[in-house]
């Protein structure tokens, strides 16, 4: 069994979904997404958690240019594949209460995007990686621009141009690396074996960095993010924040640092500073937000900043923390956006100041909301804690100052998240919130699964950490050996 089944199934599913009627398309899409999840689970059970690449597929694609359709799964990819395949059915399920105009198209686009995302997470060929990267971008652009809010046109063209610009610089970096390889191959291992000069690596570093920093987003490349998240339909926001931004983080681990290790040793410090600024900046602005969805969007900048900081601080703990925090952040942010989707669907507004007392009328909803908030603020025994602890440890080992700044901001994050919870759920009921009805059916199912994942990963993260451990250690040693050999 090779990874190609995993990559092609969603494409086929996307095409098939278009043949269903609008009303049944969501069931079909959910079915396909669950089949994909089943496939991913069978991959996990057969996966040997060492540093090797498994389920490899490697067939010539454009051989005269050294391009192969080459993909495989190691520990790092496995975690990302699992995250994607778990979240996509949840996201589809979370749209069940929506009546989208021309609904089959949105489901087809979600499934097609899944193919792009999985390609990015498993590609071992630079060209394939780039194609997957863009194949994920086109559907999300259409999802956000077709079913989004009032300003969708202006906001989404900005989003598209931002990300497309970044990825073109990455393309140039990839082609440059290809031209340096002795056998003219786009294969990632040939890239890893290159020993480029500091100057060359600096170009490569920034070429990749711009693409990944825009996607994550890292300060100051984040300006597209809050608007896009706010204007997008909830399914789009979830795809973007839950899975797509992880493409950037994954890219840093897989493509940026190993391909430009010496430049990273020099420039990584500046990237770390940007990430830490992002943490503070995201938190401060989130504090002032009145729109719940926007608040979550800014808090996401802070959380992603911490993940990036943990990676740029370069330690095994930091990297492991990043892996698990990618999963946790994906689950929590999807939950958080779903919470706000439920609120705005019932009350017609997302303005926090208009709310209060919802816990009284919707006890089940309030429990789910509380668990997700606690996961987001990284309370021990929730999934957020494991990752943030490891990430802070990684940053702490690098410099105490950054760890202190980042750590204080996390506390700050707890303040605004809990304050949001308090304002929305507690206090007195008003005319608006008295109409709130408790969650039911598919909503209950989605929130139930998310809460269960938050607690299970929080209590017993070991299996997840174990999946990626060997690959991360291997990566760390290879790269560290390279910059030990080239001290300056």
């Amino acid at each position, binding site marked *: 069994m090779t990874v190609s089944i995993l990559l092609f199934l969603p494409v086929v599913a996307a095409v098939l979904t278009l043949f269903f009627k609008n009303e049944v398309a969501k069931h079909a899409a959910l079915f396909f997404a669950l089949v994909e999840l089943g496939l991913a689970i069978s991959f996990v059970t057969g996966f040997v958690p060492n540093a090797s690449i498994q389920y490899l597929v490697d067939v010539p*694609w*454009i*051989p*005269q*240019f050294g391009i192969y359709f080459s993909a495989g799964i190691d520990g790092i990819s496995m975690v990302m594949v699992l995250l994607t395949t778990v979240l996509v059915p949840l996201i589809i399920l979370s749209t069940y209460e929506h009546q989208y105009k021309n609904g089959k198209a949105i489901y087809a686009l979600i499934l097609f995007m899944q193919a792009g995302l999985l390609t990015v997470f498993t590609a071992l060929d630079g*060209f394939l990686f*780039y*194609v997957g990267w*863009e*194949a994920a971008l*086109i559907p999300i652009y*259409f999802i956000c*621009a*077709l079913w989004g809010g009032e300003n*969708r*046109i202006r906001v989404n*063209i900005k989003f*598209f*141009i931002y990300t*497309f*610009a970044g990825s*073109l*610089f990455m*393309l*140039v970096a990839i*082609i*440059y690396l*290809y*031209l340096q390889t002795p056998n003219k191959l786009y294969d990632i291992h040939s890239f890893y074996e290159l020993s480029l000069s500091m100057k060359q690596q600096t*170009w490569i570093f920034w070429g990749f960095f711009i693409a990944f920093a825009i996607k994550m987003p890292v300060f100051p490349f984040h300006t597209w993010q809050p608007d896009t998240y706010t204007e997008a339909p909830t399914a789009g926001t979830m795809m973007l924040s839950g899975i797509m931004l992880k493409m950037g983080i994954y890219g840093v681990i897989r493509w940026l640092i190993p391909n430009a290790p010496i430049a990273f040793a020099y420039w990584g410090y500046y990237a770390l500073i940007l990430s830490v600024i992002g943490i503070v900046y995201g938190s401060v602005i989130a504090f002032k937000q009145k729109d719940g969805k926007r608040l979550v969007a800014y808090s996401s900048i802070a959380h992603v900043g911490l993940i990036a900081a943990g990676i740029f601080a370069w330690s095994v703990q930091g990297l492991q923390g990043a892996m698990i925090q990618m999963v946790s952040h994906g689950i929590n942010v999807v939950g958080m956006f779903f919470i706000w989707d439920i609120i705005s669907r019932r009350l017609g507004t997302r303005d926090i100041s208009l709310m209060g007392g919802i816990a009284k009328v919707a006890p089940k909803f309030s429990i789910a909301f509380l668990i997700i908030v606690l996961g987001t603020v990284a309370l021990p025994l929730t999934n957020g804690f494991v990752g943030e602890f490891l990430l802070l440890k990684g940053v702490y080992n690098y410099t105490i100052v950054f760890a202190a700044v980042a750590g204080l901001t996390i506390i700050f994050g707890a303040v605004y998240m809990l304050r949001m919870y308090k304002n929305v759920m507690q206090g007195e009921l008003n005319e608006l919130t008295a109409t709130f009805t408790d969650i039911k059916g598919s909503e209950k199912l989605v929130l139930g699964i998310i809460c269960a994942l938050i607690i299970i990963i929080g209590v017993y993260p070991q299996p997840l950490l174990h999946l990626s451990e060997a690959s991360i250690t291997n990566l760390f040693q290879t790269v560290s050996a390279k910059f030990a050999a080239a001290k300056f």
Partner: protein
Amino acid sequence: MTSIIIIAILPIVLLYLGLYKAQKALLPVAVLGLLAALVTSVMQWTTLDEAHSEFNGMLLYNNFSVAFSAISIISTILILLLSKGYFEKISNHIAEYYAIILFSLTGILVMVSYHNLTMMFIGIEIMSVSLYILAGIRKNDFASNEAALKYFLMGAFSTGFLLFGIALIYGATGSFDIDIIRDWVLSAGRKADPMFYTGVMLIIVGLCFKVGAAPFHFWTPDVYEGAPSLITLFMSTVVKVAGFAAFLRLFSACFLPIAQFWTPVLLVITILTLFIGNITALYQQSFKRMMAFSSISHAGYLLFAIVAIGASSATSIFMYSTAYSIASIIAFGGLILVRQQTGTDNFEGFNGLAGKNPFLALVLTVAMLSLAGIPLTAGFIGKFYMFSGALSQYRIWLVIVAVVNAIISIFYYFRVIIAMYFRSADREQVEVPAYYKFVLGFSALATIIVGVYPTLISGLIK
């Protein structure tokens, strides 16, 4: 050679058919004749790329000429299929359209297979003279007349440059034959005569006029706008591709040893072309004019292959121009249909198209994505070849300029997509005739197939 003869005789047959009022037979005969020419042309393709010369070395057939003949003939067939019902609206003498387009195609086939500078010149002139007539074929239309006059004056001017350049090169080397000129360049090396260098510069000017590269691009927007849409389509695809094929054939065969002399000049031309084309396209309100300026910027990308001239240049130009041609055919096909209904060339004409015509909106989206160079479409493969070629010669800044331009181009190509999908307007369904469905569907499919699996056609040259 048979293909040139077929295409040269075909228009005469068509004129007679027109004379005997067999209007219905024009299109089938033209298409069948072109298919025959395509088959005879493709049959000359050899796996080892053996060249064989004809007419005492005036023409030389190799895989390069086969590939470019094939793409020119296929594009012409697609354009002719779009013309069903189109020319009848403009005039009563429709045989002359088919005939003149095919005369022009004869010139193009000579341009992609010449082996002698006189043949290059004759090919370009056969093509250009036909085009002067085609641009002005709406005899009573003011814009069409203006287009023809402008094109003729500018074209004649550039022909003068070209011819003077050829004369100077003849003066320096004593021959029109490409092999002899090349041997002369190799033996003379850097000590070659200033007369020769002047000749090369003048040829660059002449050819840049023909392909519409800045700063010799001033005729393009007005001519493209004034000419009937299908003629514009023919000029911006087949003619431009042939211009580049002729350009590359001459420079890779003869002037390669003195590349360090002319590449700086072309580098400046390329960068100017990219920026002028893209930035002006950004400000257009008319879709047709936007396509005209964007075709200037595509000329800029095509020039990459000549600036970074090397073994893969021919494949790069072939891939890029194939992608660009089929995407343009979709764009203009869509424009013609939309214009027939709304009566305007502007972007607003496309508002809300996706609601009533999902198929038309989808193929136009594929075309725009391909022109913008988004992966999984042929346009990306073309850009990828161009960037790879330029980077392989370490022209990093040139590629960065191209990247910036690719980003700018998103704005105007996406305006069409935004208008079709995200803006709403009261409109009726646009009627899409079966011929259009076939051509647009085929082109969209080809765009995606080439985008996913370029190996299918990239092996044609070499």
